[in-house]
């Protein structure tokens, strides 16, 4: 590439006036001849003849052609410097462009991931089974290797409509993995809940896994997916079973009580079951939280029957919290016409504080004679 191959606007910027050799020669000659002519004029003005002035002017000037060559060299030297400036500027521009392209290249993987995900999610809905299956495998593989919780959650949501064995196995692994964060496990559980509508084995998995979960959030989430499909006997066995976590028992108890609310006469029998009451007693006595004790006691408030009456009387002898005791006495107020209850309450009042005594007095006053 020569200097003269540089585009015009760049020449103007970096090289200034770029003249051809012919023009340059002519221009320099004109300038030097002007010098000689001016000198001649001044010599003539001083009294010399034209010929003498011409000769003297040329003599003083010296070697015309050598001077012209020196001027051309100066011009070319300057041009070389300008060309070097241009080369440096070009280098800077190229470096900037390369740097920009490099940055763009670094950003490209992000774009590629977006494209890949977009294609992957589209394939999950493909009408061609083999495409769909391949997309599922890719999606699960991506989820396994990704540290992005939101991406994994998105994938779990997308595959919930595809109850393939690989999907179920993956989601079950995630749901049971206590090393993972709960947000991710809850997403997997939610997707399993959708799949459980079609696959009974998943329904069973959620129920059995939920029973033994010690993490109350995971336990409730698992059981919540299947609770609508559990009848009263199933709920009762959930409460009564030995190998069931405290959270699962409480969950079953609350759900059983809610069924009583819908058709109490029909369902009270399931709640007032002796083993259910025994479990409830254990739940009350194994917590020191006043509110939790009260919430358990209140579950039986509407269930007026001898087993519940005896259950309440038994709690009077147990080391329950004061607030819970007030609720037990309040509920026993429903049975004050029962002589056994009335006598037990009177006896209890004798060793109790004034508030409890007044409460018992008011309850006993409601006895019908």
């Amino acid at each position, binding site marked *: 590439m020569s200097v003269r191959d540089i585009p015009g606007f760049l020449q103007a910027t970096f090289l200034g006036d770029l003249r051809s050799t012919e023009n340059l020669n002519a221009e*320099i000659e*004109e*300038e030097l001849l002007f*010098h000689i002519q001016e000198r001649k004029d001044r010599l003539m003005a001083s009294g010399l003849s034209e010929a003498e002035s011409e000769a003297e002017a040329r003599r003083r000037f010296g070697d015309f052609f050598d001077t012209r060559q020196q001027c051309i060299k100066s*011009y070319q030297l300057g041009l070389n410097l300008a060309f070097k400036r241009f080369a440096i500027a070009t280098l800077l521009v190229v470096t900037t462009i390369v740097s920009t392209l490099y940055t763009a290249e670094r950003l490209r993987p992000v774009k590629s991931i977006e494209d890949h995900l977009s294609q992957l999610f589209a394939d999950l809905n493909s009408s061609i089974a083999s495409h769909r299956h391949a997309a599922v495998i890719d999606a699960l593989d991506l989820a396994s290797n990704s540290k992005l919780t939101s991406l994994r959650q998105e994938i779990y949501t997308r595959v919930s409509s595809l109850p393939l064995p690989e999907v179920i196995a993956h989601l079950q692994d995630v749901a049971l993995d206590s090393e993972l964060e709960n947000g991710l496990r809850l997403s997997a559980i939610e997707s399993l809940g959708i799949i459980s509508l079609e696959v009974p084995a998943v329904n069973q998995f959620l129920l059995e896994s939920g029973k033994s979960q010690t993490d109350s959030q995971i336990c409730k989430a698992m059981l919540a997916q299947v609770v609508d499909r559990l009848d009263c006997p199933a709920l009762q066995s959930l409460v009564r079973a030995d190998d069931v976590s405290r959270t699962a028992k409480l969950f079953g108890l609350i759900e059983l009580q809610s069924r009583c609310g819908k058709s109490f006469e029909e369902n009270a029998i399931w709640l007032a079951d002796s083993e259910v009451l025994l479990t409830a007693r254990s739940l009350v006595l194994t917590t020191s939280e006043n509110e939790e004790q009260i919430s358990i006691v209140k579950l039986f408030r509407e269930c007026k029957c001898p087993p519940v009456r005896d259950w309440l009387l038994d709690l009077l002898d147990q080391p329950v919290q004061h607030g819970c005791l007030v609720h037990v006495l309040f509920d026993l107020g429903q049975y004050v016409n029962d002589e056994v209850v009335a006598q037990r309450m009177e006896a209890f009042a004798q060793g109790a504080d004034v508030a409890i005594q007044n409460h018992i007095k008011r309850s006993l006053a409601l006895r019908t004679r």
Partner: protein
Amino acid sequence: MSNRRPLMPGTLNLLILKSIGERGLHGLEIQQRIEMNSGKVFGVEEGSLYPALHRLANEGLISGEWAITEQKRRGKYYKLTSKGKKRLHMEIESWRICSEAIEKVLSFA
């Protein structure tokens, strides 16, 4: 005995830039101004002057423009550019420091 002395090396550019000033001058005027302002001690030959003018023009320190003289002749007139003014200021400062230093050395007993 003539006082005429050859130019000190590296001073031609300084003398040209200083002589041109802001008013446009052609080569002969620049040459004569240097000679006159130096008390005819320095004379600049054309073989040195014009290559120097073209070099300075290429560096952007002076700009040359063609104009028509009173004798209806086309001549090239040079002016200082803003870049040239800055360079002139720097060159003068540099020269003063050097000349003062030389003077100190010479006056040292």
